[in-house]
């Protein structure tokens, strides 16, 4: 005779509570806002999908969405190859290893808003190293007035801040490749490119997946750096999605619209991440 008891449910209860408070309840609150028009706590109207329809038709959002995608694409296109190159050129043994590891970790320890402030100063044409150098080279650089310059500065800032992360991840991946693979490649007379293409890259696949997803999600949600640097300007050149959202929610206190927006925002990130993940793991069984 078997005896059953349901005590095990008590053991998973903490997880339920934690997930409820950290994810489900806040999320449902947002869903709640997104389908209502709220004037004050007692005056609220159910509006259905009206906010969603408005959001999806808002040209301001289209612009910042496009800007956001271009920005994330640039971040990935620069940081991933650059990170791999840095990782490949790092020393494999000796004193250089701890030295380069510490050097690479330094930018990661700097908080976002400090990064923004640092570049705000570095980029100034009168006293900043970067801005002054560019201007004295005859380039007309001013991130505060020129949209292109502002845009590039935000991008360079992110590359400076986060390439290390990709490099460190790749470096750990490279270190896990046994030496015999390189030996075998030398015996096969494989070229450096072939070693990279057929040994290193396949072995880096898993860490690259993590690097790409982290960098995509982070860059897609970028807020602090452009906000500190230019406040989203000049004009709307560096106003990315999260800043548009903040303006809408806190600046205009347009809660319903902002709620609908954040849900769409969330779904976009989820979708793109899922596409990345599926694309990079779909032929995992092959190698």
């Amino acid at each position: 005779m078997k005896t059953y008891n349901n005590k095990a449910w008590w053991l998973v209860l903490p997880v339920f509570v934690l997930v409820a408070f950290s994810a489900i309840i806040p999320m449902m609150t947002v869903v709640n806002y997104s389908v209502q028009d709220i004037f004050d706590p007692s005056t609220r109207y159910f509006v259905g999908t009206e906010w969603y329809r408005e959001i999806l038709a808002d040209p301001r959002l289209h612009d910042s969405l496009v800007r956001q995608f271009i920005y994330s694409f640039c971040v990935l296109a620069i940081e991933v190859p650059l990170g791999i190159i840095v990782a490949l050129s790092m020393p494999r043994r000796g004193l250089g290893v701890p030295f380069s590891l510490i050097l690479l970790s330094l930018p990661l320890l700097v908080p976002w808003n400090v990064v923004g402030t640092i570049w705000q100063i570095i980029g100034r044409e009168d006293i900043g190293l970067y801005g002054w150098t560019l201007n004295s080279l005859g380039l007309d650089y001013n991130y505060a007035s020129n949209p292109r310059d502002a845009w590039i500065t935000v991008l360079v800032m992110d590359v400076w801040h986060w390439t290390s992360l990709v490099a460190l991840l790749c470096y750990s991946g490279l270190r896990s490749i046994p030496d015999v693979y390189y030996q075998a490649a030398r015996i096969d007379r494989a070229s450096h490119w072939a070693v990279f293409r057929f040994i290193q890259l396949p072995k880096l696949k898993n860490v690259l997946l993590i690097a790409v997803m982290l960098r995509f999600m982070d860059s897609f949600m970028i807020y602090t750096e452009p906000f500190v640097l230019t406040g989203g300007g000049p004009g709307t050149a560096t106003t990315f999605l999260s800043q548009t959202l903040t303006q809408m929610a806190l600046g205009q206190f347009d809660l319903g619209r902002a709620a609908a927006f954040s849900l769409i925002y969330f779904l976009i990130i989820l979708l793109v991440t899922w596409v990345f993940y599926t694309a990079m793991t779909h032929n995992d069984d092959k190698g």
Partner: protein
Amino acid sequence: MSLQLDNVTLSVRGETYISDASLTLEPGSFNVLLGHTLAGKTTLMRLMAGLDRPDHGRVYLDGRDVTHLPVRQRNVSMVYQQFINYPTLTVFDNIASPLKQARVARQEITRRVEETAAMLGIQHLLGRYPQELSGGQQQRTAMARALVKDAELVLFDEPLVNLDYKLREALRVEMRKLFESRNTIAVYATTEPAEALALGGTTTLLHQGRIVQSGPSDEVYRHPRNREAATLFGEPPINLMPMTIQGGECRIADQRQALPEIWRSLSEGDYQVGIRPHHWSLRPLSEAALRLPAVVRVAEISGSETFLHLAHDRIDLVAHLIGIHEFGVDQALDVQVPFRQLFVFEPGGDLVLSPPSSRSTSPGVRGDL
């Protein structure tokens, strides 16, 4: 194509890996490097391949000095203990990779890959990826990659260690067949004496970076140059006991015996005798034999064999018996071995007398180890 190592020495950060190794490998020969882990087998192979350069000494290929010729410019292939294949390439492309590097014509590649794959029995797996294969199939793929390019020197670094017992037996038999008709120098590193004997060819005994002895495998097994060689080439290692010849008598451990016929030519003095574990017998022998009372410490039964660990006085002995024998711990018994099967060494370790080969059974047989 012959390979010659001439007083090759390699040390890394003050630690000697290979000291003063001289060795000649003949074309078309199958050479086994036998030694414990860290004996320097892999290092010696790396030196042969040109992956490392010796500190001193020279390496000659067919009389040509190739000491400083990098591996990329030699025609070498190697199979490792780990199964090393390109993970994103199919079995076909893996096997073809050395040929593609050498810019062989496409039709020729297809022909040779299929031929080599057939030889190793993996022709039905050519479209698969390494991860979809079993360990044995992965290693066959790695072997095919090594064999396909007709290298002058093929190195096997304990290739069968990570495979299960049955597969090892099967692949070992195939290995010899694969090299029978080739003019390649094959070098095969192993820690197992039985494997060295089963593969035949020549055996080079390595210990702590030194070459202890080199020669035809059964020759080295039957006539080890010294105590060290005898100990290395045998699993469990040979039993050693002190022996003294004095006044027409000999004393082995604490056993006094009349001097046997075959030891008449030895001068008086101290010696050491070596007894291969499988030469011990529990039954009384009709010929002149050493008879030793001993106490059972442990009896290890493995399949159809029994390894009997004994103590005589303070000397530990091992007897390798065919069949399953039950013993109690501390059981007293007599073990015996014919005098003609004893090795005699000088106190310094050099061999004085080895068992006459005509009367001993062929050591190529596994059960004889």
